[in-house]
């Protein structure tokens, strides 16, 4: 069933989104090309309450696009679901099949079932990759996004885009990302001897604590270790601003939004290396902005972290100022303005193309 949308529906959608992202009003956007008016953009979003940077990003993209005059929606699966904890954006539902010919559906990398279900619809299909580890998790050998008629791929990380390009040969587009500098900022007077980590991603935190505790119990007893769980973003940001250390113990981090937020808050980021973050996070050299160890190698992480904890204990972190300051520098350009400009520019170009590029399914010899 195709649903016809009224003009007022579109206008109110845009207004809602614009209200939800105040900084957008200051930007002078190019309006969508006139022939874009017939096509809508749908970002598929799983119906989950999980607080994740990926879902925030999907909502943010739609908010930015709607605010810039695009006919853009979050596409949830079941009627009535929407994330009330995120800024309001226009929402539609897959079960209502709201698509018109030439509409564009943007499908997250983990939703291969939806890709498969929509593969023959008369719409254009893009994938958005937020986490590299989900891409091949749900795909059987011999099947990939080309078999689901995915036309092109959006990512915010160059190494992830490179992986898609290397394996599937699909056109990829690397867009800028952002963090909220009004929530994540460095205030030295806020800092406490806290080590924080996202509880659901910290499989190894007990082992890390025990190995550091065996080295010296003050690392456990004199500092507060806080697993962050079930907070709203304001509360979460407050904990991050207070923290001296942010531990990233995720085995497969996509684009490392949480690490960048911690850097912006002047916390030392320490954790496992992530393929999606290679361009931004430096574990060594003059631009060092964090402490990195290979995935799962918490003994090496403990060894790397110990001098910083000892410095914290002794009240003299002078030797670490350059690392913290490199972290602040690394995220200074990761702004909502840069993200919005890249996103609008990308969609402007896409809408300006009247026919999608179709590539033959091919294999590199």
């Amino acid at each position, binding site marked *: 069933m195709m649903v016809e949308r009224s003009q007022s529906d579109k206008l109110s959608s845009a207004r809602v989104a614009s209200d939800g992202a105040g900084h957008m009003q200051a930007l002078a956007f190019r309006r969508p090309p006139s022939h874009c008016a017939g096509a809508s953009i749908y970002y598929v979003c799983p119906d989950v309450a999980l607080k994740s940077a990926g879902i925030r990003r999907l909502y943010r993209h739609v908010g930015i696009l709607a605010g810039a005059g695009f006919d853009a929606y979050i596409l949830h699966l079941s009627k009535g679901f929407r994330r009330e904890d995120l800024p309001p954006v226009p929402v539609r539902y897959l079960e209502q099949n709201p698509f018109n010919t030439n509409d564009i559906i943007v499908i997250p990398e983990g939703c291969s079932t939806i890709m498969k279900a929509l593969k023959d619809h008369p719409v254009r299909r893009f994938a958005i990759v937020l986490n*590299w*580890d989900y*891409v*091949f*998790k749900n*795909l*059987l*050998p*011999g*099947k*990939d996004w080309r078999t689901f008629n995915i036309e092109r791929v959006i990512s915010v990380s160059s*190494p992830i885009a490179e*992986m898609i390009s*290397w*394996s*599937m040969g699909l056109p990829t587009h690397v867009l800028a990302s952002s963090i909220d500098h009004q929530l994540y900022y460095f205030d030295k007077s806020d800092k406490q001897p806290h080590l924080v980590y996202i509880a659901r991603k910290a499989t190894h935190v*007990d*082992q890390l*604590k*025990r*190995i*550091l*505790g*065996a*080295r*010296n*119990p*003050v690392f*456990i007893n004199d500092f507060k270790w806080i697993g962050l769980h079930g907070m709203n973003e304001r509360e979460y940001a407050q904990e991050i601003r207070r923290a001296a250390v942010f531990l990233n113990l995720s*085995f*497969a981090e996509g684009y490392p939004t949480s690490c960048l937020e911690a850097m912006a808050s002047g916390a030392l980021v320490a954790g*496992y*290396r992530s*393929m999606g973050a290679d361009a931004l996070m430096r574990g060594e050299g003059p631009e060092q902005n964090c402490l990195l160890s*290979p*995935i*799962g*190698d*918490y*003994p*090496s992480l*403990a*060894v790397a972290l110990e*001098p910083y904890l*000892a410095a914290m*204990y*002794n009240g003299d972190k002078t*030797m670490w100022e350059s690392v913290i300051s490199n972290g602040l520098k690394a995220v200074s350009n990761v702004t909502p303005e840069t993200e919005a400009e890249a996103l609008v520019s990308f969609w402007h170009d896409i809408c300006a193309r009247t026919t999608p590029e179709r590539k033959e399914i091919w*294999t*590199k*010899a």
Partner: protein
Amino acid sequence: MHQLKDHPGRRFVIALSWCYVYSTLPDNLDWRHMSIERVLTVSPAIGEMIRWSMGLPVHQLSSSIDHRLYYFNPDEKQKQIAFIARKNEHTLKLQSLLASRNPDYVNKIKWVGMDRLSQQDYASLIRQSALFLSTSMAEGFPTSCLEAMAAGAIVCGYDGVGSRDMLRSDGKSPNSLIASNGDYVALAYKMAPLLEDLIHDRMDRWDPVISSARRTADAYTAEKEASSLIAFWKPIIYGQLQRPFVGEVKYRDISNPLVKNGQPTDECPLPGY
């Protein structure tokens, strides 16, 4: 350990896998609290971890592989990749990624997950395989990799932390293809040229890696293992290596760290040793 901590005997630990050490200990207790006197290991990585964290004396012993079972016979080799089924959580994702690059990588090469084989059958499969895949992220001592190296199968995978001193994929004489732990994408990039050569019968280009790997494995003989074991136990049994630590567990003093060239050093031994 806890049960025996007050028995009148001497207590040693033999550490075979690094990942079990701190995942099985309770908070705020370690082997020193259980009156463990010293630690035996065959893995330098495990030795370093114990020394660094608990400060216990560590004895590095040699290990061995059975060279009568694991030897190189080029005539036996097939277009085959072997892996231990229970240790390869990333194999499916790696296969999907590689197949997406080129379906021949999974269609023209046999991928064999080994499970519950006899030692003879296992060794025979390893000897037939051109590649041995090891994507375990937590390996203690990489016996299976050494056996594969001795049998002329190119080891591809992660170092699993415990193999980082032995597996080299860079430098003058690489003996394997190793990616950073957990990064199966980087592993796929490294493996693709090798798989191309395997499919197109160009494996002679990999002879230097195979030779280097065989040299690495050659060093692990039963004789060396036996002599290192005897050398360890003799002074223990004949009383030359006494129990070094009695009393309260002490920790490294971090309030006044040693500093050398502006960097903290780890040179201060724990009190009591």
